[in-house]
């Protein structure tokens, strides 16, 4: 306990001295997030300095081993770091699918060479990753994917199309599910990593109802991929994919927390009694969900959580986030309808509201999450 206390005071002092004041202000929009990567342009010196200092200490991935760019912190220490960052409102120095999704899968399934090659780069934010999972004919039925990788002796030859590839147009590398055998649906999938600059890769953004394009269509036309870039065994990529999906769902579930602390009612100060009652009902659910998230993350780190519980969290968190934005629209009245005007901050309220509608679709729909809970936790027949 005393050691943890001294870790806390050292962490507090370091953050106080090293986190630039600009990085303690809440982000006004998604575009202020730092994603890193080889083409990244920092929006300010503060953003660059903050990332460099955190990378230096291994604190972009505090619980990863030191050899791979982390700080080797215990779960209790990582929690203290999180709390101390939250205390001063420090921004996340790096948003990264490499950290939240690929990294954990590489740590579990990657070989030594892959771990040494990719993990430190991920920790330093040097490579921006995208995820090549869904295809036009394989969304919720992910294992129905058709993108093909043929064994050409010294390389894989990849042909096919992916869709809903988040930020594919900005990514440096992709982690991608490909079909290497047609003998069985789930048993013929491999997990492949490759550079988005490889000849034959092209991307096209998809405009969403929010007016933004976080997603892309991605095309592979005779893409040559070196043989040593398969993670895990050939034809056993489904295991890697499922493990990674657990982490993706955990990350998306975090949206249910709303980010700001405080209750929605405190932020909106509703004066209509019916709206106030509905917001209070929402706040009860949101605060209860926050208690569950805390418990879930502790159980997850201690390996005590049920392996299917990220599905429960993803389902509950995303449904909650959609409700939050419906209430923000209701409380905003006609102000919340302004799509493009000076006083509406670029239509942030309606655009964010529309963006949340994808939450219960991306990373596996709510219905798929319920199927998983029914099958793996409840053990219901035929699920």
């Amino acid at each position, binding site marked *: 306990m005393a050691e943890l206390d001294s870790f806390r005071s050292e962490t507090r002092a370091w953050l106080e001295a090293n986190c630039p004041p600009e990085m303690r202000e809440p982000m006004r929009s998604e575009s202020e997030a730092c994603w890193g990567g080889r083409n990244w342009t920092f929006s300010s010196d503060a953003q660059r300095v903050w990332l460099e200092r955190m990378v230096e200490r291994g604190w972009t991935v505090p619980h990863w081993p030191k050899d791979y760019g982390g700080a080797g912190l215990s779960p209790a220490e990582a929690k203290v770091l999180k709390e101390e960052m939250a205390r001063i409102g420090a921004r996340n120095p790096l948003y990264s699918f490499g950290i939240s999704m690929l990294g954990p899968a590489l740590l579990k399934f990657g070989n030594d060479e892959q771990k040494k090659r990719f993990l430190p780069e991920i920790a330093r934010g040097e490579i921006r990753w995208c995820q090549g999972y869904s295809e036009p004919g394989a969304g919720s039925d992910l294992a129905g994917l058709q993108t093909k990788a043929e064994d050409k002796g010294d390389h894989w030859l990849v042909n096919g199309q992916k869709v809903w590839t988040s930020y594919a147009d900005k990514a440096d590398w992709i982690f991608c599910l490909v079909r290497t055998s047609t003998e069985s649906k789930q048993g013929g999938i491999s997990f492949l990593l490759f550079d988005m600059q490889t000849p034959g890769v092209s991307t096209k953004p998809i405009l969403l109802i929010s007016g933004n394009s976080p997603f892309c269509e991605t095309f592979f036309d005779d893409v040559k991929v070196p043989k040593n870039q398969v993670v895990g065994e050939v034809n056993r990529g489904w295991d890697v994919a499922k493990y990674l999906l657990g982490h993706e769902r955990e990350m998306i579930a975090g949206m249910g927390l709303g980010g700001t602390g405080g209750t929605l*009612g405190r932020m909106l100060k509703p004066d209509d009694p019916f709206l*106030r*009652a509905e917001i209070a009902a929402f706040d009860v659910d949101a*605060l209860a969900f926050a208690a569950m998230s805390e418990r879930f993350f502790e159980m997850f780190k201690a390996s005590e959580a049920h392996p299917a519980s990220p599905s*429960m969290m993803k389902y509950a968190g995303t449904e909650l986030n959609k409700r939050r934005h419906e209430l923000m629209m209701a409380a905003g009245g006609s102000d919340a309808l302004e799509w493009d005007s000076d006083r509406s901050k670029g239509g942030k309220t309606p655009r964010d509201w529309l963006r949340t509608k994808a939450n219960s679709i991306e990373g596996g729909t709510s219905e798929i999450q*319920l*199927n998983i809970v029914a099958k793996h936790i*409840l053990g219901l*027949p035929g699920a």
Partner: protein
Amino acid sequence: MLQETAASFLADEGSIAKQLRHWRDTGCTDGYGTALWKQFGELGLTGICIPEAQGGLGLGSVEAALVLEEIGRNLTPSPFLTTAVAGARAIEGTAHAERWYPGILSGETVLALAVDESSRHAPEKTALAAERRGNGFVLNGQKQLVVHGNSADVILTIARTAGSPGEREGLTLFAVPKAAAEVESATLADSSKAAHITFSNVELDADAVVGEVDGGWAPLARALNAGRAGVSAELVGVAAGAWAMTVDYLKQRKQFGKLIGEFQALQHRAAHLYGEIEIARAAALKAAELLDSGGEKADLLVAVAKAKAASVSKLAVQEGVQMHGGIGMTDEHDIGLYMKREAVLGELFGDVYFHRARVAELSGY
């Protein structure tokens, strides 16, 4: 360890058939078995919230929650919540602790908490008058939904010694011997007993005061927080018990040549309920932890826990009865008993609406 002890003890001794149905069908006037309450005492469970220096286990709300979840799961009728949790907390650190703790520890004494004066929970609105007379007080007024009020040895009664209804100041908590008041017993929907109590010129000595005169809000708030966190845990147990029974049924009952658990419409509802129960349990545990650690958000989380546990438990019992179909409507089947218990516990110490309003108030809107 405690959890395992409580779970096996309550599944064996506190089971529905052995307790709830037995006492209901034999027309028991207490609504629970006094022998079982003594067994609670022998296991040390009655002393969970009592300090070690006074012979208890010196544990807290978290441990009480673990026991209460099992009580809820088995629908065990017992005065554990009113006596070992809310009552023990109310008298904690006062002269009444010395007097009543030994009986609580041995499972011989039962306490009841008399707060509400109308059909809705509203502790601030207490009007029951306690006027000074000589060295003591005279009480006039009435209370309702006093759980175990008919079998309790002492009724902890919140009364007004100053101020006016709506104010937290000017309240005083009294330990009233049951014999002093007029007790009209009522059987509630879940077969538990609660009393309407009338105080007409009930004379009490000054030493009946628990804590300070005009300072009754402090012991009352302690008791209500412990009771609300406790009843949240019990509601989680009720929800979990109803849900488990329902999922078992989905795996056994065949219709259209299939197990009904194969139907996605039912799978999704059962899976949704699973998540809601986990969330309610996390909220109840968080509330209990904050009460034990004196966290500044304890009041807020207690309100969250009660509102969430009550709404989730209501969903669980409704889905439970519906998914059981016709058999779920029969008295012979246990699922309906969960629905009745939820209705009573959901109301106790403030319903969903009371606690949502409290969350709004505590959050400043």
